């Protein structure tokens, strides 16, 4: 499976939500990171076919998706942000409903497979209103894979989950990634750090960076520093530098600072992680940071 985005643009009146986004997605998990207002939701809406781009083309295995009509929907699965679904439906009823909407032929076995995959088979007669947040997210995955999609788009899938559920969810995604592309839009960097094949960084409607996690980390090599300072200095530095972590050590603080130059003589360069890349890309120049 190969999905090519070629100079995708989208404008709402004078507001340009996407400014020529180009990327290629193949099998595997792709992380889509970006601050609020970066254009993630617009890109997702275009990818799942409910919004037409103002310009550019999307090709799926070489075919222009705009010319595929509603058959394009057979190839995609989507899981919305904060899904609540219908509280009075049972899990089985909801999946049955989604099968009808997706035009799935073998409803019974598709539902069973999806429920077994997300480990909700035993809860199939439970009302959705009685499911926990984690179960509801897994149900979201189950409905998204009913039609065995080639492209799976997940919007903030781990929002509101506890750490245990989040790890379980990541493991599910890893299993799903064979033979299909998964685009995972999130604010939570750790969600994509372990499982993403590549990460796309979107800012103000533009794709500012795309690469594997190690490539992205490499891009800010030598710009992440750690140092131990006392409390007044720590407060002062956190106001003037982009601090990605602040750890208390007795009376002092260990700061992790992102800066093009050594912030203090005692600062030592350390290996960057994805949080550092995220901050460096999106927030380095905000709030007076140097």
């Amino acid at each position: 499976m190969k999905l090519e985005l070629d100079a995708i643009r989208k404008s709402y009146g004078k507001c340009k939500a996407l400014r020529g986004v180009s990327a290629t997605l193949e099998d595997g998990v792709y992380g889509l990171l970006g601050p609020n207002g970066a254009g993630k939701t617009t890109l997702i809406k275009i990818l799942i076919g409910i919004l037409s781009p103002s310009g550019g083309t999307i090709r799926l295995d070489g075919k222009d998706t705009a010319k595929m009509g509603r058959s394009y929907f057979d190839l995609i699965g989507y899981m919305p942000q904060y899904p609540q679904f219908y509280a009075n439906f049972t899990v089985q009823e909801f999946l049955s409903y989604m099968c009808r909407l997706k035009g799935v032929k073998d409803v019974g076995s598709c539902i069973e497979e999806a429920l077994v995959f997300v480990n909700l088979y035993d809860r199939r007669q439970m009302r959705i209103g009685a499911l926990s947040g984690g179960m509801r997210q897994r149900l979201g995955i189950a409905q998204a894979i009913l039609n065995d999609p080639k492209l799976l788009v997940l919007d903030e899938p781990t929002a509101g989950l506890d750490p245990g559920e989040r790890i379980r969810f990541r493991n599910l995604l890893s299993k799903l990634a064979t033979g299909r592309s998964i685009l995972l839009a999130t604010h939570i960097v750790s969600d994509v750090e372990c499982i993403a094949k590549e990460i796309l960084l979107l800012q103000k409607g533009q794709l500012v960076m795309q690469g594997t996690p190690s490539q992205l980390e490499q891009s800010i090599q030598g710009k992440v520093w750690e140092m131990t300072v006392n409390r007044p200095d720590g407060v002062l530095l956190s106001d003037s530098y982009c601090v990605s972590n602040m750890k208390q050590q007795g009376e002092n603080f260990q700061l992790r600072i992102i800066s093009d130059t050594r912030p203090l003589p005692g600062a030592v360069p350390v290996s960057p992680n994805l949080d550092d890349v995220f901050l460096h890309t999106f927030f380095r120049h905000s709030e007076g940071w140097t």
Partner: protein
Amino acid sequence: MKLLYLEARKGILRRSVLIALILFLCLDILKIGLDYRAGEIREVIGNTEGMQAGFAEIYDKVKGPITNETAAFLVGEYRRLSQAVADGTYSRKPQEGTYSGYIYGDYFLIGSYFYSQMSYCVQYSMRMAERLEQERENLKLYQSVGNKSMAAKCSYILQHYADRSISSFYLMDSWESLLQFDFSDLLILLLLILGVAASFTREKETGMTMLLSSSRYGGWPMLASKCGVAISYAIGLTILFSVLNLTVYGVLFGLQGWDCPLYAIEACQDTPFGGTVGQFYLLSCGMKAMGFSILSLLLLLMSACFRRTLYPCILGVGAGAGASYLAGWAASPVWWKGVLAAVSPLTLTRAWNLWSCLCGDWIGNIYFPRITLVLLIQLVLVVGMLWAFKFLLVHAGV
């Protein structure tokens, strides 16, 4: 079918709606029961047991096909009792050989319930023949002065009112009350709002809109299933309440007289409807189902326009009240009131207003009953709503 069922499970087959439905059905029975006990449908029910027994005895003797014997019996009894009470010297004490136990009670029963109704039935064909003769003369007059529109109305009357007669005698007060009973319409309206107003807002509130839109059958097929469910719900409610009302009235009064012509009800002596009372009840139920179906589509459209369920609910109550008010002008001779009434889907729920008397309009020189105008405007309304749905589906992604 499964999609329709699941769509219904979302909004209608919910515990809250089903509980409301059961409560409203009980309320409907209670309302008819209270009206019955208070004597608002048939006055004698609120009277003494003796009067009720007398009423039943006389009614048993005269109901059914009108024969010389039944007519003569009523005329004879009425004359006898009129003479007996004429000078005011009649006995005020209970008397043997009377129907109700009192001589004045008998006079009251026969005079109020039977004699006038029998006179109406017997004289109807003669009075209608006179009316038609008058219309024939009017037709000639209008044709001679070139008034084609009024001539068209006369022709319509001559076509639809010919050969009318009433051959059976039944007290039609219960049918008249049943045909005008509109308390259940209010309950249906509230149930419609409860079941339909959240159809689209629910999708928005639960974050399902994008998910549905990105499904192969999440566009028109889903909209069609929502419309189908709303219409089925409206029709189902109308049938349920109509059968319930008929059953309760049947238990309280009996269903005798269902095969009498509608004009056997004195208030409908000028009706253009030539069928029986039973047929008219079916017609009025069909019209109600149509009116509530259109109203349910309107509620669906309101639901598609808002993000929160509260707004279409409030607007639905307002629209229901407004439509009900406009429907009150269904038989108005003022043209703009007639047009406004025709815009209201609830006018279709007022079959009595539209059919109990001759109520029509002209386009050029063509005369047609008001119901034609109502149906035409409602058709335009439905087409307009479908267009609005298409617009919302394409441009707003509901």
